[in-house]
């Protein structure tokens, strides 16, 4: 007797890709603005990026209804934190909060693939990458979403140290300047757009540094 399976799923995948790269004193977070369902496009102009605090920005791909709910929960929790501590949350603190929030729904997860970028307490760029249930790690760069399998190897090639056997030991992250990082992001999305049908339309880039926050946009292929 085979188990009867649901003829309805509470989840949907709205596609899209997200990337974040950390620098010495900046952080770049980027995501495309296409929202799809199945083989259709719902809209070409939907932001997957949310600014949680002055110093943390989250980009999430996956099921956008869950992403929206997640953003609202984090935003409300941040307000409570501010009431209690009289200051904003640091990026590492927000990273832990995001992890806990995701694991809280371990048995009915948020279908959200997140990448959190920002500046840590010392002003250095930091990127945290997550799975749907809250497992996270601080890294120098990361990609999530439908184009992540295309993007990540390229970032590894450009940013990762060539070999652990090389002497002298190199940094895990090549010291890119802010402009170089932004250019890299643009290149990476242009490439992902070519082969991933769910990535395209427009690219939204958010740059966080000591002087504050900046936004840039770039058109991508619309097919």
């Amino acid at each position, binding site marked *: 007797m085979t188990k009867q399976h649901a003829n309805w799923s509470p989840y949907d995948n709205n596609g899209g890709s997200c990337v974040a790269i950390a620098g010495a004193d900046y952080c770049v977070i980027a995501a495309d603005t296409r929202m799809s369902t199945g083989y259709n496009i719902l809209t070409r102009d939907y932001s997957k990026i949310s600014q949680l605090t002055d110093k943390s920005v989250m980009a999430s791909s996956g099921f956008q209804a869950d992403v929206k709910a997640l953003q609202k929960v984090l935003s409300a929790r941040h307000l*409570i934190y501010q009431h209690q501590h009289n200051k904003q949350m640091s990026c590492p603190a927000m990273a832990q909060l995001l992890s806990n929030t995701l694991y809280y729904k371990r048995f009915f997860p948020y279908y959200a693939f997140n990448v959190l970028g920002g500046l840590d307490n010392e002003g250095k760029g930091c990127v945290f990458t997550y799975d749907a249930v809250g497992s996270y790690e601080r890294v120098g760069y990361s990609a999530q979403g439908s184009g992540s399998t295309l993007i990540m190897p390229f970032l590894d090639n450009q940013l990762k140290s060539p070999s652990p056997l090389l002497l002298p030991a190199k940094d895990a992250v090549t010291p890119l300047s802010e402009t170089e990082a932004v250019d890299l992001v643009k290149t990476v999305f242009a490439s992902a757009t070519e082969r991933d049908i769910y990535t395209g339309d427009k690219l939204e880039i958010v740059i966080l540094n000591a002087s504050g926050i900046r936004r840039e946009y770039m058109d991508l292929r619309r097919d």
Partner: protein
Amino acid sequence: MFRNQYDTDVTTWSPAGRLFQVEYAMEAVKQGSAAIGLRSKTHVVLACVNKANSELSSHQKKIFKVDNHIGVAIAGLTADGRVLSRYMRSECINYNYTYESLLPVGRLVVQLADKAQVCTQRSWKRPYGVGLLVAGLDESGAHLYYNCPSGNYFEYQAFAIGSRSQAAKTYLERRFENFMSSSREDLIKDALIATRESLQGEKLRSSVCTVAVVGVGEAFHILDQETVQQLIDTFEIVKEEEAPPAEPQPATEQDAAAEQASGADQGGAAGDQGGSPMDI
């Protein structure tokens, strides 16, 4: 003032139809240090007198930011006030989460009043011993409400609560007709003068008072001590006090400058100038 027979329980009526415990709670409000509120069409200003237990301690926080559009000044049992502020903050966050818009002030005060009423009808509770001046801005304009321990609330053009508030109220009664059309600066000036009235003789310095403003295009925030001292000096409120011949006046200015320095020190020591999002 002894009404011993019927005042043990909050759930006991007196033959005259009074709940003495509730009235005693209102007395607690009158014992607290003064809090003043005034509003115009576009702004609401809250001011309060800071009373420290001793010179060694910091003064109690009496003004709380509840949300960007609402703030509250309390008089009475400040611990009760803190708990109610936390409740108000939580309500604003939850409302904003559900409706993605700002909680209308009128709704918040009703919820607060209902919460206070519960404590007047349970034998295992006691009324909150704090009066709240709720200042807020919403779609229907600028509002100032007073919530009492009894569970009643009223909207006011201007009001003062706490000890020696009658002096402030008298001043406000003389001037309130102009408030609706007042500018922000005039409103703050009137708040400071009303605060001075309730100080009754003590010099008005930024170290003894706290001022907060909310208005159209201006989120609720507490003014920092330097700004308040400058306003006091600008409005020449200190000079308005009876100074005999002209001679003491330069001395008063020096005093004010010295006061400002010590006021800033006290403020730093008290640690409430943190540049925090919830205070300033």
